[in-house]
């Protein structure tokens, strides 16, 4: 990493311990990472490695047992609108229309209705939901629902976008399409993104850096810089090599090497 790039999010020896009946479950231990501004980070790891817990700690939905996570130099204490989160199961309010879902955070912050409408329209256009403003979530397809989820997370203009396997519930075709859309949105909005996935292909396609975590207790195992130019070609030899390297690593890990 170039030393002159500003670090926006830094993990300093982060631990997460869940008290069990008589013992303790260490979900995350000694996690250290510096994330640069406008960087696209994918966190990859076997299931149960604590990657979702890690993301929820950034969001402030889980407390940090030890260490700290700092956003722009300030330690995270709880949830806040400076971090936008996108959920695997969308988490849309079924009684709200598309625009009302997008405006939720603005409403919370007491933004005027005129201002809200302008902002939500901007994000409706950005995620390509024009014409569906007045629809309810149950009238939308999975891909469209997640577009609403992304727009809602972005509407607060957060410093960082947290995505918890956002395309995990989508079919393969929609998933590929949404990945391209996400890259376009990322480039247009210039946000920093932390993206959780268990798909190596998705991580290599999207990320600037792929962080591979160990199985529980989860911590950083390796970090892969993906220097492939965008748009990336899944059929290119470089792509395939990178994917194979990471897949082999995960396979080794599964065999306990």
């Amino acid at each position, binding site marked *: 990493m170039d030393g002159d790039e500003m670090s926006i999010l830094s993990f300093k020896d982060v631990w997460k311990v869940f008290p069990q009946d008589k013992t303790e479950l260490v979900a995350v231990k000694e996690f250290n990472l510096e994330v640069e501004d406008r960087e696209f980070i994918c966190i990859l790891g076997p299931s149960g490695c604590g990657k979702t817990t890690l993301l929820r700690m950034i969001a402030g939905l889980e407390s940090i047992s030890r260490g700290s996570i700092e956003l722009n130099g300030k330690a995270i204490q709880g949830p806040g609108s400076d971090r936008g989160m996108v959920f695997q199961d969308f988490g849309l*309010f079924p009684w709200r*229309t598309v625009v009302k879902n997008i405006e939720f955070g603005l409403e919370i912050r007491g933004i005027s209705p005129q201002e809200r409408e302008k902002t939500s329209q901007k994000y409706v256009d950005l995620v390509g939901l024009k014409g569906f403003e007045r629809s309810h979530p149950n009238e939308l397809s999975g891909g469209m629902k997640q577009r609403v989820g992304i727009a809602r997370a972005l509407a607060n203009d957060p410093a960082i976008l947290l995505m918890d396997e956002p395309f995990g519930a989508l079919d393969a075709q929609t998933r590929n399409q949404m990945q391209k859309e996400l890259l376009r949105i990322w480039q247009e909005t210039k946000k920093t993104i932390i993206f959780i996935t268990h798909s190596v292909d998705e991580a290599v396609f999207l990320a600037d850096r792929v962080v591979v975590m160990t199985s529980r207790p989860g911590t950083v195992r390796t970090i892969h810089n993906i220097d492939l130019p965008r748009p990336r070609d899944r059929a290119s030899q470089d792509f395939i090599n990178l994917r194979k390297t990471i897949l082999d690593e995960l396979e080794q890990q599964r065999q306990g090497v």
Partner: protein
Amino acid sequence: MTEKERSGLWWEAFRREGVKIALTVVSLTAFLLIWWGFSIYLDSIGLRYLPSPDEVYNAFIISAIDGDPFTQLPLINHIVASLNRFVWGFALALAVALPIGLLMGASKYSRYLGMPVTEIMRPIPPLALAGFFFAAFGVLYGPIITVFYGVFFPVLYNVMFGVRSVDPILMDAARTQGASRLQLFSKVILPFTVPYLMTGITIGLGIGWMVIVAAEWIAAPGGGVGALILSTYTNGAYQYMFVGIISVAILGILTTSLSRVLESKVSQWMGMK
């Protein structure tokens, strides 16, 4: 689509609807004729408890205009008196059960505090307590409290269940958007509970109607359909009794279908169907 195809579709729809309407007419006519035949037969063997439809119709006209000879109160007064009690009992139950249900759903400790009592009281049929309510609250408020009791628990339990069913992801989503505890309540929990509340209301309306008639048997100042039914029953004036029974049936159908329409409209508006 050609003209012929279109008229074919129209004919299909007409036939489907036509059959439905025709069968409805057949069903109701058969019901009326069987009733009529049965009343004539029973009368012929000396049992006079089933009045014929025309006797009920005549009684209905007399009740509607001058009032039946026993209570001397026009039918509309009985209906208004029953509705009055019903609305008060219902509104009171809603006003009390909604906040308590929200509280018991949202807070574990208030649930621990409230559940033992509600679990004991819920299985008691309201009518088992009607006499006590009459003695404790008097003839004016006794029937209202009885209706209240019948409506209270379905509303309470449905609201509580609604609050407890709130999708945790929605709570997380709202929290990451910066919602405060109060905002979580007003913008997530409350709207999420509305369809459950509507279900509670629909069930409560049904129970309320069953309860009001019997509650008016104990005492009904100002009249009431239940009082009309009881008065005419003890006098064996069954044609007037059936006027009361049919009035209750019509009012019950109206209120429950109104609440059903409201329930489905609300969930439609809310995109929660």
